[in-house]
């Protein structure tokens, strides 16, 4: 729900900060002020930023674990089922379910599916691929992948107020502030 005072043509407010230290301190202030629809943008991950932004730990580990279990079951199932049920053959007098022989294939499939979980799970949690993003409307934002350190607070945030939010960012040490068009 948008309140009438917020302009529909503005997606958010972009503030640039000086270096990683400046961004980290500003993030602490913005998060303390209670904003929720905002993020910090930097060309590389900054140590301590997750705590400064008060983010919950990533759930990616659980996704990967589930995929690992799936891969293990797939590998064990494939080897045991094919060799002892679907195509049971006596090979050098070995047992049909010759478990030690199946360790390599089961292990590799566990790793393979875990890796799929890690990569595609990360893409899923990060809303990727998403080629169109309103952040890209700002020319200055391009430096976020080079040497720029930014905070963007969305106008959709309940606490957003055109002047107060800008004041907060200015007090936090912003060296440049501009609106991002929607």
């Amino acid at each position, binding site marked *: 729900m948008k309140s009438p005072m917020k302009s529909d043509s503005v997606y958010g407010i972009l503030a640039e900060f000086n270096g990683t230290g400046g961004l980290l301190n500003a993030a602490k202030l913005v998060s303390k002020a209670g904003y929720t629809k905002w993020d910090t943008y930097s060309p590389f991950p900054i140590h301590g930023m997750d705590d400064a932004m008060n983010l919950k730990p990533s759930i990616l580990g659980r996704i990967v674990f589930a995929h690992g279990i799936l891969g293990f079951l797939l590998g064990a199932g494939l080897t045991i089922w094919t060799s002892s049920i679907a195509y049971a053959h006596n090979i050098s007098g070995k047992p049909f379910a010759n478990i030690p022989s199946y360790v*390599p294939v089961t292990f590799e499939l566990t790793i393979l599916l875990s890796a799929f979980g890690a990569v595609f799970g990360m893409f899923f949690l990060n809303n990727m691929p998403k080629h169109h993003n309103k952040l890209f409307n700002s020319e200055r934002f391009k*430096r976020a992948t080079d040497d720029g350190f930014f905070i963007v607070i969305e106008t959709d945030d309940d606490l957003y107020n055109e002047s107060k939010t800008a004041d907060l960012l200015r007090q936090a040490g912003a060296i440049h502030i501009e609106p991002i068009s929607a």
Partner: protein
Amino acid sequence: MSQTSTYVPEKPLVEGNHTFGSLTALIGDITEKPAPTWWYIAFGISNLLLGLLLTMIGYLIWEGTGVWGITNPVGWGWAIINFVWWVGIGHAGTLISAILFLFRQGWRTAINRFAEAMTIFAVICALIFPGIHVGRIWLAYWMFPFPNGMQMWPNFNSPLLWDVFAVGTYFTVSLLFWYVGLVPDFATLRDRVKSSIGAKVYGFFALGWTGGNRQWQHYEKAYLLLAGLATPLVLSVHTIVSFDFAVSIIPGWHTTIFPPYFVAGAIFSGFAMVMTLMLLARKLYGLEDIMTINHIEKMNLIILVTGNMVGFAYIMEFFIAWYSGVTYEKAAFINRAMGPYAWAYWTMFLCNVISPQFFWSKKMRTSIVASFILSIVVNIGMWFERFVITVTSLAQDFLPSSWGYYSPTWVDILTYLGTFGLFFTFFLLFLRFLPMVSMAEIKMVMPQADPHYNESKGGHA
């Protein structure tokens, strides 16, 4: 992931007075500038060699594996040697990207992208050989387990099938790991290149990356997990490759030392290959500030350590052959060192055990010329190691009446040469179109990346 070099006096990982912006320009602009003349010449030669490889493969498929030197009793020749050699080279890339990451070795950021690319292209070269060795190549898909009209399934007791899974998984995971590392750099290039087509192509692969911390949080977790998964994977891959030999009953192959011995050898040769490529790239692209003498020294130390592990394994094999009391085992090793292939054995020993000893001297391991020459010597030695293992054991096994002597044919030699064409074609395209150093990761190991950088210098935060 960031490094606090203010507290621990360590040599700077990036030399020169670089800012984040100047590093982006140094690395990212290589893809935008016109390719230098040497690039076109090297690419042309690589393409010719690639053409040679395709011709040789075509000839092999047309005529059959009889055009190779393999025959009884040596049924595994250069194809398997080259397969193991190329897979082994790939291992350094994963070691640098995964194992050194888990050990928080910041210096890996200068070479990890590069080494991971090398891994992928080396594994492609490796995978060609078992693929074309099957004889009836149009039935190569029988290697994969899939439901079929014959109601047949592969034999999961066979180490060769384990290889299909191990190397296949290794290739897939290496590719994913490499791509995940590339995503933020694709975004950098998307925001940087001047041509609109370039921005679209890089933007497509960047998948809409913004660099937001809510993305970095999951990204770093994924990177850590991938490193944790790739570490046992890389150790398992060459272990399973060694099972191709160790699970058989041929004297000289049926030994328990093979898995660690193969893994150490793989890392040894892989680091040598990274060194060869890195020394060329840093010179040709002017990246001396990023790939410093300090990096070269650290890599040479790893070459020294793994070289000694390999040397230990060579000597231990002889000891165990004697200690086992098995006549055939003893004969196999005496034949290796003093039999018809003694020339290959001593070439291997000289290149792999003696030559890395130069790196005990700090002067040698910080010398670019010595590093370059020894890195090539090591890879020659590691090729001979696989030759010695594969050929000597098969040429002289249990019955002297069935002994033989193996020589390659011109097709063997030209096919091997051709794989260099494949490797360098891919590698040169990589140097041309992708950032060869991970821009996001190298910035993380700079002192300015630490949020407390200004405070510790007494400045404002």
